[in-house]
């Protein structure tokens, strides 16, 4: 920690945090690729960007949780001294409210305050904690019904988020000077969200600073004094909020190279697509031979919609031999590979009922099936009996594709299957999906990558668990998907 000159004589516009050329590389992945920004008291910075643009990494660098692999981050304390690192970040009054809930459900509201507030020790700490959290909750959300003694596990999702936000603003040993709010309104209803926005404005006008991350562009415009747009780990645009319109903001986020559109299937979509084969209560529908994409920001209900559909169409004993739906997992470790089994066993798993003879598995037929798919899909191994984990991620995914496609199921559900797969394999998989669609299979394809969604015949965009738009044909482009992913209207005036 070094002392700055003129301690105590803090200029009104001296920044609280300064990042200069901060870089975070995980191996070859550049999560943050040279970000420079400063945040001064009184500022509310709206941070905007698509999935994987680097917002969360930037937040973790700013709050000291992640040490950048290059560049520097420095904090200015209340007394004017400077420091770096997580301890200095805490001492400088940097607080974070994370997107995924970071409360302990087994503790009460006041006990949860103990975790970030280190000074809560000794006799009577419970009373202090209860006072702090009640005061913050009362200031932020007047009319709330949360008691400090309630167990967090018994609260609703919205109430938990309120507690978390209140803890971020609550007074402590060091007062909050910069509060980072990552999607703070995702589970709050409109009136509570309004209370939060009002408090953010109050907080900033009294000299605090806020970083506000939200997919609700209306909210961002309402509170932000400055908007920084991130893409591919860089800040690509930064202007006062008045310098943007909602449309110009969407334009700034977009522009993924769109030369990929010409790789579309040569077969005319009209010839390929037949009658409707599925429709769900929430509005998802697909026809025979159609590739239907599910798009939107990650975690907005796409995977859940797929899982619900898949569960409703499978599980019955009679469906084992002639399944209705096959599933390609994206999270291979969680719901894809059997890590201790060979490639062959992993591949033939869903196909086993048709390989049974006299109650036992016909090993020869299994090997034939494996060899057939190895050739068709190009799994790079010299022996199908090698363990599945000996393959690269992309080849593991091919085995999972083969597992689903080897079945007779007319519908294939894919839950972001290209996660962590190399470009070459991706191209092969696209080709495979198109071929199978031509032969009459229907695909439901959730993907977080716009490039993949653009391969589909029809796209449903999800927002907050609901379908916010249905796009077909030429309307499937990044601009429309982004526009439907982000809330365009402000929180009702």
């Amino acid at each position, binding site marked *: 920690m070094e002392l700055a000159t003129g301690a105590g004589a803090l200029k009104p516009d001296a920044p609280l945090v300064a990042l200069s050329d901060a870089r975070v590389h995980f191996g070859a992945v550049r999560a943050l690729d040279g970000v420079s920004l400063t945040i001064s008291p009184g500022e509310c910075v709206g941070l905007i960007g698509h999935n994987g643009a680097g917002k969360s990494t930037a937040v973790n660098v700013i709050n000291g*949780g992640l040490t950048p692999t290059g560049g520097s981050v420095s904090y200015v304390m209340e007394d004017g001294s400077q420091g770096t690192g*997580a*301890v200095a970040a*805490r001492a400088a009054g940097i607080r*974070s409210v*994370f997107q995924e809930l*970071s*409360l*302990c*459900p*087994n*503790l009460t509201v006041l*006990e*949860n305050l*103990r*975790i*970030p507030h280190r000074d*809560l*020790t*000794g006799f009577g*700490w*419970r009373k202090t904690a209860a006072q702090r959290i009640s005061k913050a909750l009362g200031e932020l959300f007047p009319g709330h019904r949360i008691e400090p003694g309630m*167990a967090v*596990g*018994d609260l*609703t999702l919205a109430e938990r988020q309120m507690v978390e936000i209140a803890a971020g603003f609550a007074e402590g040993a060091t007062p909050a000077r910069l509060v980072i709010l990552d999607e703070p309104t995702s589970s709050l209803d409109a009136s509570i969200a309004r209370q939060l926005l009002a408090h953010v404005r109050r907080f900033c006008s009294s000299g605090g600073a806020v970083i506000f991350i939200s997919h609700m562009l209306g909210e961002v415009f309402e509170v932000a004094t400055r908007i920084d747009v991130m893409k591919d780990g860089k800040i690509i645009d930064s202007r006062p909020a008045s310098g943007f319109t909602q449309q110009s903001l969407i334009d700034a986020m977009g522009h993924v190279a769109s030369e990929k559109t010409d790789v579309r299937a040569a077969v005319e979509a009209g010839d390929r697509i037949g009658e409707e084969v599925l429709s769900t209560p929430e509005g998802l529908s697909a026809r025979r031979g159609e590739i239907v994409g599910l798009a939107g920001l990650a975690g907005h209900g796409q995977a859940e919609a797929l899982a619900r559909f898949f569960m409703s169409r499978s599980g019955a004993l009679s469906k084992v031999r002639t399944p209705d739906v096959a599933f390609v997992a994206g999270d291979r470790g969680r719901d894809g590979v059997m890590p201790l089994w060979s490639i062959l066993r992993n591949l033939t798993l869903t196909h086993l009922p048709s390989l049974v003879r006299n109650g036992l598995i016909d090993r020869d037929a299994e090997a034939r099936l494996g060899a057939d798919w190895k050739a068709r899909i190009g799994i790079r191994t010299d022996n199908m009996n090698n363990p599945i984990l000996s393959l690269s991620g992309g080849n593991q995914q091919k085995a999972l594709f083969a597992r689903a496609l080897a079945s007779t199921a007319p519908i294939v559900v894919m839950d972001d299957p290209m996660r962590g797969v190399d470009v070459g394999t991706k191209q092969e998989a696209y080709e495979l999906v198109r071929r199978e669609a031509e032969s009459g299979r229907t695909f439901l394809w959730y993907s977080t990558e716009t490039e993949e969604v653009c391969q589909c015949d029809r796209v449903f965009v999800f927002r907050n668990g609901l379908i916010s738009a249905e796009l077909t044909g030429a309307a499937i482009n990044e601009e429309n998907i982004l526009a439907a992913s982000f809330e365009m209207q402000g929180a009702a005036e």
Partner: protein
Amino acid sequence: MSGRYRILLPVISLAVLLAAVFYLQPRAMSYFGLNLLFNLAVPIALATIAQMMIIMVNDIDLSIGTFVSFSACVTATFLNDTPLLGAAILIAAILAYAAIGALIHLRELPAIVVTLGMSFVWGGVAVLLLPSPGGAAPGWIRTLMTVKPPLVPMAVVACVLIAGVTHVLIMRSSTGTLLRAVGGNTKAVARSGWSVMKLKAGAYALAGVFGVLSGMCLVGLTTSADANIALRYTLLSIAGVILGGGEFTGGKVSPVGAVIGALTLALAGSFLSFMRLSPDWQIGAQGAILILVLAVRLVFSRRGRKWKGAENG
């Protein structure tokens, strides 16, 4: 609301069992009767608290039974003959427990495997110390365990004391809150800059302390030790924690409930003896009682969830 139910069930099961025992054997309803019923429950209660410390941080300890046996052997030999050396050995054992906790966290090892392995280590060392049953209880421990307080027998006083002290330590103190937070959401604790390794080592060290106390109490009651004296404590302690309203994951534990759970299990044994059930059947019958109580709890928590669901719309 669900928190209130949690402690209610162990209390009710203990009361029901106690009533049944008194009905079968009215003479148990006396100072000496109660002491006889519960004095062997004191070391079980301590071992259950030790197990609770581990379950609190989302791990499980399969070595607590052999660890208590080991502590009992040290107490009956070294602590009796050369008190200083004995105390040093017991402190070293507690430190070893802390080190195991740190190791499990650092190397991301499954606690169930590490503690299963350690159970053979503790068991082996105990056999080396006392190849055949023997040793003698240090006089002061013997005096402490046979003290006769007025009105209420020692066993009851000791259990209330254990429950009270651990309740303040785990449920009320700020450090205990932090330890439970590790079980509830490890990531949140780490994010706030705490060292999860130190906290886990602390929880394991506490388990070691209560394991040692359990062994010392046991020797005080039995006056001698044996390398296999407390083997069944491993399963009894796990059952006691769960019976007392704890859960295997999520840091949901209750020290008062755990002590009551241990008492219930100890009482179940006496109850079955009073029923003149052959010892061959007793273990199975004890299991049946456990399943019954847990089934009742499941019904309660199901219904609780349904109510909550209705409230939320």
